[in-house]
């Protein structure tokens, strides 16, 4: 991946957390997608994508999140996005109505809770 975006993956028992900083546009969206799907294991209850540090996200990035959501649903896993109101990229999620389809939270803790609570395969 080039220097536009950096992704840190954290494998936790309660789900995979991917923290994306930098910018996502059509030049690197493919690489971001490969990295995110590669990080997901079948045993994980779901995926948290934290875009608190994402300064720029265009419609190709939003489309990627929609695609991820569809793929995860098919595997009985839950997607949740951390996007606090202060993050610039939150605005594009709101105007595309993304938050009506996928849970969007302000904090990482809330997102992890959401994944654990909604995932059908989550341990009791």
């Amino acid at each position: 991946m080039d220097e536009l975006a950096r992704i840190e993956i954290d494998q936790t028992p309660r789900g995979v957390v991917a923290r994306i900083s930098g910018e996502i546009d059509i030049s690197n969206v493919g690489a971001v997608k490969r990295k995110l799907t590669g990080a997901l294991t079948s045993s994980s209850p779901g995926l948290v994508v934290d875009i608190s540090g994402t300064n720029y996200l265009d419609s190709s990035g939003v489309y990627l999140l929609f695609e991820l959501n569809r793929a995860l649903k098919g595997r009985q896993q839950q997607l949740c996005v951390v996007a606090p109101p202060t993050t610039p990229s939150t605005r594009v999620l709101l105007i595309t109505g993304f938050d009506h389809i996928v849970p969007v939270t302000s904090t990482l803790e809330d997102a992890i809770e959401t994944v654990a609570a909604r995932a059908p395969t989550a341990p009791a």
Partner: protein
Amino acid sequence: MTADLDAFRSGYAAAFRGYLAGGGETGLESAYELGREAVAGELSLLDLAGIHHEVLADCLASAPKDELERVARAGTDFFQESLSTFEMIQRGFGEAQETARLEQRHAAQLRGLADAALALNSTLSVEDMLALLGERARAIVGAERSSVSMAGEGPRMTQRNGERLVAPLIDRQEHAFGLIELSGKHEGEFTEDDESILEQLAHMASVAIENARLYQHERGIALELQSNLLPDVLPEIPGVVAGVRYDAGGAGEVGGDWFEVIPLSGGRVGMAIGDVVGRGLPAAKMMAHLRPALRAYALEGEPPAVVAQHMAHFVRTLDRDQMSTCVYAVLDPATGELRCANAGHPPPLVLTGEGRADFIAGKPGLPLGVTTDYDYPEVRTTLAPGSTLLLYTDGLVEKRGEPLDAGLERLREVVASEPVDSLEDLCDRVRNALVREAPRDDVALLAVRMLAPESGPLELELTAEPGALAELRRRLDVWLPQSGAGAEETYDIVLATCEAAANAVEHAYGPGEAKFHVTVRAEDEEVTIEVRDRGAWRDQRDPRRGRGLAVMRKLMDDVNVTSTDGGTNVRLRRRLREGRQHGRARAHRD
């Protein structure tokens, strides 16, 4: 006599090692005493020079690389001292003893040999040594011509006939690595004495050359490492121009100076300069760790104080006892906001467009590598358009035996003394005024100037490839706030314009390099954007493209797409309501 020589040699070795270990004046006194002993024991100058060279060669062989220079220099002082007493006593009794034994010319040759030994040992480059060797051999033996070569295989023994004298250069592994040849003797033919003198000289030179080759090899690696790691060209960043001047320390080993200019999101620019304490390969290696680390932290978009703290943590994880200093600053060219964190480095200097120069106030934080438990202070200030930020390393301002403040004041005066000129001229002028021809230490100087706002419409011709979108964002991020757009408006217009531009890029057409054009105007509190390409508008049934258009419509007051055979033209219009004043800070992006 052999037993005496051995005893004298061990005495000499012990005294010299004592001097190396910090003997100072007492150490030199022992050199004086050794000179007396040599005369009393009827040792010749040649014996003394030979012993000195064996001892020095031993010390050089066992000295760490960064000590070579010091050992060689100490050797020169020590030998000179022993010679001076030797010579003085020789002058007193010499007429009767030594000179009676040695003919006048031979004594002069020996003296020349001792001088050559001193000169060879204070030279560090192989090229200089070879030149010196030829020149001295000619003078001492009295010959017309000399040639010195470093050919791989040569004779292993001295060769002499009347017109020609050849001595091999032999390393510690007894491998002949070169030779010195004399021809055209001034008076008569080459003698046995000439042969023995040249052999001695070749032996001394061999040791010195071998040491110098080792040393140059390391220096070469460090220099290459350093030049490979420093950026060749600075990136072009809208709203600023940058200039750099970098000189690797000439006489000594390379240091660990480094610098970096990084385009950040939101049109901001990150600038860093750093200096690893120490020299040579270890410093260059450390620098090789630091620069990419800083780049990575900077691209995360963290403020300077946080980046400095990350760097401090990072350095501690390297598990090296090596301290380093750096400054990291972030400038927003649209607003002039400058944030700066300093880890033990000399303070950055700001030169205004009117020619005033002031250091950025505030005490520097701790150098990197000291502790991880430390919050770096961050200084915030605002630069006026036309101002220049100057980052530099201590090689520019430090002079031995002078307080740092004096060097800083000298820098401030030099920077402010002339009318403001191009960055290249500024860097050259500052460097030439403050640093002598061949600096011992590295000198790095990085200057970044904030340009006055562009007036008139923004006209861009961009290559139709995905990488162009980031460039478009950088340009808009600077131009829009300067044209009166507020923070949210800037965000909206940038996003909508880039959505339109992404269409142009994804529908690049025809053979060769395709281009597309963006024109942005701000008039009567309204921004209009035109994105023109020569491709067909993408099929709107594609869910992804539909979303791009939907995003544009949500963000803009008006979106107009005209598609003809000649290409596609997207016109976007957005009224400005949010911020009226120029240069409003985009606080929410921090």
